[in-house]
């Protein structure tokens, strides 16, 4: 594994292990996000993605391994789902100011950045799923984050909604220069702007630029480019098993995976766009 230069990493984890009820959830996982980098973690349900995020944001302590954060690191966290109890009255404007108060102008600007003007007085309970997620994103932005952590933030959004959300994130990265760590359980949908994709399944199966992951021998990849190039639809084949010879733990990552600049998006024709062929659901 390549030596990590420590100067550019916003957050760096080494050999994280965690077990629950005797079953390993994470097994010697190495992970890092650099300044200005978009990293997407994909993996099936139960692959330890959320656990990894919890450890990285400091909500959970690993059994073994270390997490090192850049000094003064500000994390903007967008949770997977947030249930606001109906007993708590919570307008959008007040929610944005949790836990720190922000001026009216800052709140309005954050809402504008996610395309939700004039929603301050709305109760959170009256928002649609897509609006709710964008309010969560706006709240994270008010933290002026160095690192934006999105835990399955597009769950439940339809494809145009997801595409719009990803465009906002990409735009924010470009403007604010923050690192972005995204998690997706949907193996087909990975943001094309990802500099690196990390495939997690208890251990790191595969790790590299979208291109390298897409062309990794154990994966067949199918691309879709129907949404202004914002969405890339990968198809990961997770039928391979690791039982008869665990593939090397830790990232046997291809060169350059550690601190890579933005990777060019590989562009195919539209032929393999199965997701779109099936018709986008309006949900």
């Amino acid at each position, binding site marked *: 594994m390549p030596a990590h230069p420590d100067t550019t990493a916003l957050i760096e984890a080494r050999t994280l292990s965690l077990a629950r009820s005797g079953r390993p959830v994470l097994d010697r996982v190495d992970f890092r996000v650099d300044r200005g980098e978009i990293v997407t973690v994909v993996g099936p349900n139960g692959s330890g993605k959320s656990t990894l995020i919890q450890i990285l944001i*400091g*909500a959970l302590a690993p059994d073994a391994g270390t997490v090192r954060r850049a000094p003064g690191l500000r994390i*903007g*966290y967008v949770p997977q789902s947030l249930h606001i109890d109906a007993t708590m*009255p*919570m307008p959008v404007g*007040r929610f944005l100011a949790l*836990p720190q108060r922000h001026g009216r102008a800052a709140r309005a600007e954050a809402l504008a950045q996610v395309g939700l003007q004039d929603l301050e007085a709305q109760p959170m309970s009256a928002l649609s799923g897509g609006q709710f997620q964008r309010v969560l994103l706006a709240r994270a932005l008010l933290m002026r984050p160095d690192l934006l952590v999105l835990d399955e933030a597009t769950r439940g959004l339809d494809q145009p909604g997801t595409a719009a959300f990803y465009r906002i994130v990409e735009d924010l990265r470009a403007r604010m220069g923050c690192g972005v760590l995204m998690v997706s359980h949907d193996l087909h949908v990975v943001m094309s702007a990802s500099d690196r994709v990390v495939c997690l399944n208890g251990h790191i199966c595969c790790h590299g630029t979208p291109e390298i992951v897409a062309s990794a021998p154990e994966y067949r990849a199918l691309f879709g480019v129907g949404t202004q190039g914002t969405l890339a639809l990968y198809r990961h084949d997770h039928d391979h098993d690791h039982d008869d010879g665990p593939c090397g733990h830790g990232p046997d990552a291809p060169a350059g995976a550690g601190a890579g600049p933005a990777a060019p998006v590989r562009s195919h024709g539209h032929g393999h766009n199965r997701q779109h062929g099936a018709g986008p659901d309006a949900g």
Partner: protein
Amino acid sequence: MLDDFLTRAALAGLGVALAAGPLGCFIVWRRMAYFGDATAHAALLGVALALALSISVFAGVLAVVLVLALAVSGLSARGVPVDTLLGVFAHGGLAVGLVVVSLLPGARVDLMGLLLGDILAVGRTDLAVIWAGAALVIGLLAWRWSGLLTATLNADLARASGIDARREDMILTLALALVVAVALKVVGALLISAMLIVPAATVRPLARTPESMAVLAAICGAAAALGGIALSYRADTPTGPTIVAVATALFAVSAILPRRG
């Protein structure tokens, strides 16, 4: 002015209501109603132990409630369901408290007073303790408001903002212990959690923000306390239960009102 028992009762009720209203909002938001109940019942054990050990009742109640909170969080971390635990502690605390009270040699303990409160017997010292405790609770909630609110919304969100959700939980538990300790004299162990929950539930439909809900709950609790004292004086009914009955009547009115927001 403080010579009048009715004035002292009104001030005592007011002090408890002003602290219990905002704290009760957290109890309601976190769906901790049963925790409030368990705490209040266990307070009886605290009184009994305090009398047995000849220490201050306030300290006894505080100690037992804090031990209860630690036991609940410790055991629930080991996989015992929280509602089961609280059921055990609520009734266990009440039962053991009653047993210990009966064992106290020569002590004449006013059991009805402990269970249902004895607000008309509140003295100047009690009043000072009640208002000091209430001020402490209100101060604690105001000081930690943002953190408490964030931790109540979502623990992950709080941790990502650098807020230790478990510390905020402990602060709420401490505030709860304080309110229980000061409210014991006013409404009694059986009805303390009503002072927490009923005002908060009553004003929910009227509130647009968490802050307004906390303020309205304090006002509603105060109105119930004053109304209950006045009513019990006229109708010659037990004061603590009358206060809670008035609060419940207010809840019924608010529940019938058309909902908004």
